[in-house]
């Protein structure tokens, strides 16, 4: 069976095409000048440039971390280009009709026909292509509700007070090596503000795509849910197939003020590299949210792509009675490596967190869960429940669990459950004996394994995630 798995794992990456869009790209290299140029092309105010330069100086003093259970060739930060924009973006399109048709075709190939989504799904989409935000649909409808959903580069101009207050407030510049780099060079991303008491009338969604060669993608997302508001946000990611590794170092900050709720879902399908581990995206992402009193943040992620993933969406449960949730499906195959999990920092009283992590490993891949649950001295009556399940396909892959618990409050309760199972020969035989072909059988079994997480995704995306798993598993048996 192992041999069959190996052979069959050599499947094509469906989103691996390159778009023929003309673009303006900086020379590779990173220094203060490059940062000034980024700031200049974006026409940024002085304070923003200062913020970037400060971060750059911090970054220069830092060292790349190496504690994760991943092994990769170190990134040459001078060989990356830090800005790339499709040329036609210079005069920003005001509506979909003005968007470069080639770009729109790209999104269609990705299965996101913007126009259709606009009409059918009622999903507002912000699409980030390489470094700039291409188009934001549904703006008007959102504006009626008072919701702000725009490229962060635009927010810098339009909502400087909100940005000055919240940018870097959840993930400080110094937080880690990649976060500091992002602060210095981020080019775009999404900004969301939901006013007090407003329930965002539709799902908000961003699609990220890296197209240009040797570019890094450093997007930055900031979501602020004001008191008593509610928002559900989804991001999707793809990249073309390239032999070189590409770096993706994003920062996402969520702020849930009193009684607010943010649901953040990710379907990540960056190019994972080929069977020998050549090429693919390095996905080094910092995601964190802060919950004020009675607030709730829920992270749901389906991670199937990238050659190396290093990602720990976290919740700082600052306010009393606040709730943090993390639901994750991470699938690795070929030579992919994923080290992912979450941090739940319980500060307030009666704070609650739930962690459900489903890791699936196939081929020669390595899949690690790394999670920290910290109960601070003031976290009276806090509770955490963690469940980590690993599923192995074949016998050349690895699954690892690294749960860290730091409890400084004796009244806090931390529960941890972990299981490891295999897609068994008995299960495969049962399915095949009923007439189901082996590929469908594996994907059905894996989907069953992930059910608890998929049910947390918005409906239309749960279907998408199921399909993505099916595609990713294509050929994982003979």
């Amino acid at each position, binding site marked *: *069976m192992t041999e069959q798995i190996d052979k069959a794992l050599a499947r094509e990456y469906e989103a691996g095409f390159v778009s023929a869009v003309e673009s303006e790209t900086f020379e590779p290299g990173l220094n203060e000048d490059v940062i000034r140029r980024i700031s200049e092309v974006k026409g940024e105010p002085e304070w923003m440039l200062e913020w970037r330069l400060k971060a750059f100086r911090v970054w220069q003093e830092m060292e790349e971390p190496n504690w994760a259970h991943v092994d990769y060739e170190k990134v040459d930060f001078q060989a990356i280009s830090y800005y790339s924009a499709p040329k036609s973006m210079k005069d920003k399109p005001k509506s979909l009709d003005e968007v470069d048709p080639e770009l729109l075709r790209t999104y269609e190939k990705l299965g996101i026909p913007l126009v259709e989504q606009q009409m059918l799904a009622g999903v507002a989409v912000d699409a980030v292509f390489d470094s700039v935000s291409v188009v934001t649909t549904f703006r008007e409808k959102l504006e009626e509700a008072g919701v702000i959903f725009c490229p962060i580069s635009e927010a810098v101009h339009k909502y400087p007070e909100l940005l000055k207050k919240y940018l870097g407030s959840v993930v400080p510049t110094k937080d880690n090596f990649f976060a500091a780099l992002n602060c210095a060079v981020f080019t775009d991303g999404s900004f969301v503000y939901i006013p007090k008491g407003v329930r965002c009338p539709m799902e908000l969604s961003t699609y990220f795509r890296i197209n240009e060669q040797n570019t890094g993608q450093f997007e930055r997302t900031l979501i602020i849910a004001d008191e008593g508001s509610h928002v559900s946000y989804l991001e999707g990611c793809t990249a073309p197939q390239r032999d070189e590794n590409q770096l993706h170092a994003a920062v996402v900050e969520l702020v849930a003020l009193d009684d607010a709720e943010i649901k953040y879902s990710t379907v990540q399908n960056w190019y994972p590299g080929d069977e020998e581990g050549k090429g693919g995206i390095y996905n080094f992402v910092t995601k964190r949210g802060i919950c004020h009193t009675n607030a709730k943040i829920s992270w749901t992620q389906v991670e199937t792509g990238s050659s190396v993933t290093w990602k720990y969406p976290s919740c700082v449960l600052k306010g009393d009675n606040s709730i943090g949730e993390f639901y994750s499906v991470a699938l690795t195959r070929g030579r992919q490596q994923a080290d992912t999990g979450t941090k739940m920092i319980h500060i307030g009283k009666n704070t609650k967190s739930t962690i459900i992590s489903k890791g699936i490993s196939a081929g020669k891949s390595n899949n690690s869960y790394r999670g920290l649950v910290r109960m601070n001295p003031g976290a009276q009556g806090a509770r955490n429940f963690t469940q980590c399940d690993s599923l192995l396909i074949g016998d050349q892959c690895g699954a690892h669990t690294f749960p860290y618990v730091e409890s400084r409050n004796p009244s806090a309760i931390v529960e941890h459950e972990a299981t490891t199972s295999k897609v068994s020969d008995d299960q495969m*035989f049962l399915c095949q004996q*009923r007439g*189901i072909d082996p590929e469908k059988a594996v994907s*059905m079994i894996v989907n069953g*394994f*992930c059910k608890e997480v998929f049910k947390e995704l918005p409906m239309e995306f749960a279907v998408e995630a199921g399909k993505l798993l099916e595609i990713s598993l294509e050929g994982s048996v003979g």
Partner: protein
Amino acid sequence: MSNENVLLSIKDLHASVEEKNIIKGLNLDIKPGEVHAIMGPNGAGKSTMGYVLSGRDGYTVDSGSASLAGEDLLDMDVEDRARAGLFLAFQYPVEIPGVSNLEFLKVSVDAQREARGEESLTSAEFLKVAKEACKQVNLPVSFLKRGVNEGFSGGEKKRNEIMQMILLKPKLCILDETDSGLDIDAMQVVANGVNSQRSSERSFIVVTHYQRLLDYIKPDFVHVLADGKIVKSGDASLAKELEEQGYAWLQTEPKEDELED
């Protein structure tokens, strides 16, 4: 082929598991509509026969032939044998956590329909027939929502196997000790399920240790399988003799490894 009107034809079949010969010259012809009971001591190779016919990995055919409706079975993949009409009800049904019974059943039925060039049923149509099948085997409809065999009792698992058989409408059903471990009520449910599916088109191989099942499912033939081959065949009365006298009188010396289940 000796006879056109044979559904399953097994000729001098030899098969092994992990280099060990288990099936040692098996011959069996089954015509459409017939019910054949197979009895025999533990370790005789009854389950192995079912696995070899259905093509399970690790079960190697060394020589001989087996055909279903004239098609060479041994040449086909597991799923193709299933689509050709071979159904195996498992002695120990496995669980598939998180995959609902309904989804599993629909995917199975769709796969087989597709192989026959038929349209797949809509969800609503399928739900209707699935509910009907639930009733037939006396399982609450809520079992359609539960994970495949997940947390089912032994009896519920076996009834679930019969439900799958009813929905898949196979040509040849192999029931491997479906009655073992069942109380009398559950056994009757299984027997009724089988009887409801009997037709001139459909044949059965019923592997059992117990005469009592054969009181409900009246077999046309009874065979004794011992040490990898059929050592005696007869009609329903043979089962009664076996029940009374055991297998020892058949002169097969039980070897040590045949004493295990």
